[in-house]
């Protein structure tokens, strides 16, 4: 949902700028999203989010995470052609390699839960960003193709 609002916001800013141009009177009223971008927006909206969060040092999925992943799994079962990658993130206070491992485990736990709910294992790959990208410990499901 947040992503839709963001896309709308960007579109509004863009259209405001366009309206100042001469000879251009027609404003687009809908953001134009096509192909995989449209699927991304739909996936995020239908799943209630692309991101699940973990406690510090934890690799265990909590109830809120499972709710999101259950919805993600339902969407993925309806879109068997779409391939996703789960990107795990470690904690900033951790050491480099342990954070990489924790990120990988978070991604694997997330992937395992999706597979448990009937998503073909070939549809989901994993990676880990360790502490390379700042932010809370989390796993993000991204549409690849």
């Amino acid at each position: 949902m947040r992503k839709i609002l963001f896309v709308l916001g960007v579109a509004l800013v863009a259209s405001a700028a366009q309206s100042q141009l001469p000879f251009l009177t027609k404003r687009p009223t809908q953001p134009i999203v096509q192909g995989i971008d449209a699927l991304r927006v739909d996936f995020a909206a239908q799943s209630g989010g692309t991101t699940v969060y973990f406690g510090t040092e934890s690799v265990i999925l909590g109830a809120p995470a499972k709710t999101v992943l259950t919805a993600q799994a339902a969407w993925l079962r309806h879109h068997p052609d779409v391939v996703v990658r789960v990107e795990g993130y470690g904690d900033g206070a951790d050491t480099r390699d342990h954070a990489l491992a924790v990120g990988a485990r978070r991604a694997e736990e997330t992937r395992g839960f999706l597979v448990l709910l009937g998503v073909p294992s070939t549809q989901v790959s994993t990676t880990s960003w360790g502490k390379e990208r700042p932010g809370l410990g989390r796993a993000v499901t991204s549409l690849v193709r």
Partner: protein
Amino acid sequence: MKRFHLTLLLLGLGTAAHAQQAGSPAGTVIAVPPLTSPDSGNKGNQMLSVGFDISKLIESDLKQTSELAPLPTKREDYYSYPEVTAPSLYKWRTAHAKVLLMGFVQSRSDGRLTVGCYVYDVDKGREMARKGSVIAPSEWRRAAHKCSGLAYTAVTGSPGIFDTRIAYVAESGVGDARTKRIAVMDSDGNGHRYVTAGDTTVLTPRLAPNGSQLAYVSYADGKPNVRLLELGSNQDRPLVGGDAISFAPRFSPDGGRIVFSMMNGPNCDIYVVNAGGGAAQRLTTSPGVDTDPSFSPDGSKIVFESDRGGSQQLYVMNADGTAQRRISFGGGWYASPEWSADGESIAFTRRGQDGRRIGIVKPDGTGERLLTTGSGDEGPSWAPSSREILFQRVDASGRSGLYRVTLDGSAPRAMTIPQDGSDPDWSGVMD
């Protein structure tokens, strides 16, 4: 005379004696008069000029140590070529020097240079060590570093760190837009060069003991994987095939094997593989994260970190994976261990309420000591001398730099590098 000289040079190799221990806090006083030359005329003048540069660099190298105190290198301390093997020590006794480093630079018909260095015990009037090398004129810095190492080893018994390299991850930009490139430089900061392009996130470079190869982690395939780079030819290949995430590589002391971590489902275990290729052998099987393996200098044992007991702790096992046992019991979490080259100590990162700090512990788990007070320190890497540790520190402003700390309790010193840096690795002595 020339032949006699070279014969002496060869015979004398490996006679380093420990006659002079670093006793005073200021270090052992060593005289480094400028290298002489057997050449005459214009050539001779050129060689004397190179010799002076080499001696000044030796003086500068030795000044960086706490064990040796060099007297200033002065042109007026010129000596003749025959004096290299028959030094007049009286002059240096009156200057209170305990050790004397002399030598020569000689031009060769093939355009290269022969550089010879001799170390004398001034009080006993005895030769302690000698070493000769043939180099291209552009390599004069390495020749100087070798002479510095010769004197350092003669006095302390430890390998010098002058002719060694440092690899690290050079960082620019912030947040998700950060660019990471692997850089390699001489340990004195010279010869800095980048060995990856910066279009792919890279982590944890680890130099082979002889400095010819570099194992590192790359996101080239979208996920972290260990790759092996030949520094001479720039040939680059994945360490192991397959789809699994792999990281935390380190060479064995002989350079023939590489230990690393690989994901196996949600399980992170330690594997070993020949550096030349082949199938990886799994060494640990416990659930949880086993990572950051590091060989003991004789190659018989491996120290690593594991959270199998609930929190990250240090464990030691035999190199075949048997006899795994925990060695850290000091409270807090222990990570990223590295075994020192003399086998006596293991450096580690300890995580606690006060953040991340660098410490050392004996391989049997006794004698734990913290060396830094920073809250964002990690990734210790031993100098080949086993007397100093290089590590990464994130300071209060969030910038990451490389620091050196000695075991004597003095404050860490920042290394000068062109930009931010992380994941440092100190090579063995080049040859």
